């Protein structure tokens, strides 16, 4: 009798292994959390030093048009106006998303609705292949093909927002396409059946039912693509021209937050104003990618398929 009681009150083998499993996954979670917090803390501490240690006005930083941290401006403060880079980053991101979206939706619709068999066989692997190409390859192709093309057709030196847009368009296309395709796949089959049963044509079904039902997912896909475009550094840096000037047209050399960062960080000394100013740019980038994440969350929550 006692033996059975003891055995029942003991923690079983299964419970122990479950506890162990929970502990291990908890450890993994803690590790990731620590890494994320450390990154935020590091970038924020470095980025805010520009404002607290070097006493740069936040407004001047966000709205100034001259980026030349080693030179003192008219008011006796170093010139760290980040507006040209912020504008450049946003312009390039928006334009490339704008160009990529119709192509992505078209491809996804073709893959899912019009020719599911061939689509899955040919287009799916092709788009997935595009994801795997390293960004330096895109940049190199941009430099040797896109830039001369833009120079011949649109004039200027060929370096600028337009070339950056072309390169980023190809880079974010696969991301947006495959995510859109996934959303279309998750639209329940009976939506289409009901629509067709009511006498709608295939085009009407796609246009009025499938795409409508998948809108939140497609928006998420676009924002994801924009987040990738915003953070892309190498390929953009190779074709955008890296002039810290407000772009006055699409073919004038300009710059993005990432291009100035990658170009400048090796030439500055840790702890100097020039270095801190670059960290402030990194902070802006980090905040923007957080912002993109929040948008994705909100869209996802609002438009869950029920």
């Amino acid at each position, binding site marked *: 009798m006692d033996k059975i009681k003891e055995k029942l009150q003991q923690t079983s083998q299964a419970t122990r292994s479950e506890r162990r499993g929970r502990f291990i996954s908890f450890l993994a979670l803690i590790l990731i959390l620590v890494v994320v917090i450390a990154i935020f803390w590091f970038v924020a501490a470095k980025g805010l030093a520009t404002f607290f240690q070097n006493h740069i006005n936040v407004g001047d930083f966000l709205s100034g048009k*001259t*980026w*030349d*941290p*080693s*030179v003192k401006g008219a008011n006796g403060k170093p010139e760290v106006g980040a507006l040209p880079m912020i504008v450049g980053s946003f312009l390039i991101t928006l334009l490339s998303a704008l160009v990529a979206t119709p192509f992505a939706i078209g491809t996804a619709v073709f893959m899912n609705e019009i020719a599911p068999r061939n689509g899955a066989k040919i287009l799916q692997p092709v788009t997935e292949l595009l994801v795997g190409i390293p960004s330096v390859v895109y940049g190199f192709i941009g430099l040797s093909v896109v830039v*001369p093309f833009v*120079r011949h057709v649109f004039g200027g*030196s*060929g*370096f600028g927002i337009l070339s950056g847009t072309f390169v980023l368009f190809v880079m974010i296309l696969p991301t947006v396409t495959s995510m859109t395709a996934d959303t279309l796949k998750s639209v329940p089959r009976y939506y289409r059946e009901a629509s067709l049963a009511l006498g709608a044509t295939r085009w009407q079904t796609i246009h009025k039912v499938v795409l409508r039902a998948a809108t939140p997912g497609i928006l998420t896909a676009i924002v994801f693509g924009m987040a990738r475009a915003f953070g892309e550094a190498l390929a953009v*840096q*190779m074709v955008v*021209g*890296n*002039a*810290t*000037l407000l772009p006055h047209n699409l073919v004038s*050399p300009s*710059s993005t937050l990432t291009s100035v960062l*990658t*170009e*400048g960080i*090796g*030439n*500055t*000394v*840790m*702890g*100097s*104003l*020039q*270095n801190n100013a670059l960290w402030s740019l990194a902070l802006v980038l980090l905040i923007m990618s957080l912002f993109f994440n929040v948008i994705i969350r909100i869209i996802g929550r609002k438009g869950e398929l029920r």
Partner: protein
Amino acid sequence: MNKRRIAGVALFLIAVGGLLGLGYQTRNRSSAGGSITTVGSTALQPLVEAAGEQFSGDHLGVFINVQGGGSGTGLSQIQEGAVAIGDSDVFAEEQSGIHSHNLVDHRVAVVGIVPIINKEVGLKTLTTAQLQKVFDGTYTNWRELGGKNVPITIVNRAQGSGTRATFEKWALRGHRVKTAQEQDSSGMVRSIVSTTPGAISYVAFSYANKTVQKVAINGVAPTNQNVTSNKWQVWSYEHMYTNGRPKGVAKSFLNYIESPKIQSTLVRQLGYISISQMHVERDVKGRVTVIR
């Protein structure tokens, strides 16, 4: 089942332990005196790499790790004592954020810098005043300078680049330049100038090849000979800084690079000018003295 799990755990431990062991075996032994790391200027990198290889060949078991990263990185790393040698195109005194009193300067070579323009512009010489007005944006078309009717496209190196600092100081005489497009390597600058009509930039002598037009300044041709006599004033020393007096491997490596063996072979083959060829000396303030 249980056996499989034990095998899994054992495999995991072996993998992790193996990686750690590998890392330990191949760790940087700078403290042990077996090898050293130099970081910095990309303009000097080819020379240090080539010399480092030969040095390792002569001294078994000694390795010179050479990393780029730019002059600023080289100076900040040596200031923090993270590496044995920091390479720079500029004097440590000229770089903001560097406290130079601890750093010991070793000048291992001289490099000349020349303005380059696209070949179709049709100009071969410019005056200092003309260069200043090209780079500050006063002139916008080569026609105004007697060249072809093509707009001027300025291509700069990145802010903080040693080549740019030297060019602005000695070719433009500190004249403030207009913001223009920037590229972060000499090779990139040259290929852009060679393919873009009306482009102007500047590179080290070793990068200026037949695809671009070298420009003489005030009638002085950009040759090594003119650099050694300071007739061509746009040049800079290549510095290798140590934190305090060099010791151990760093000391013997610096001696090796400064030795006639390297100075008369590698330095010249790679397009630098040897220190021993110079007829003048220039200090950090720019004062030039003739060496007798």
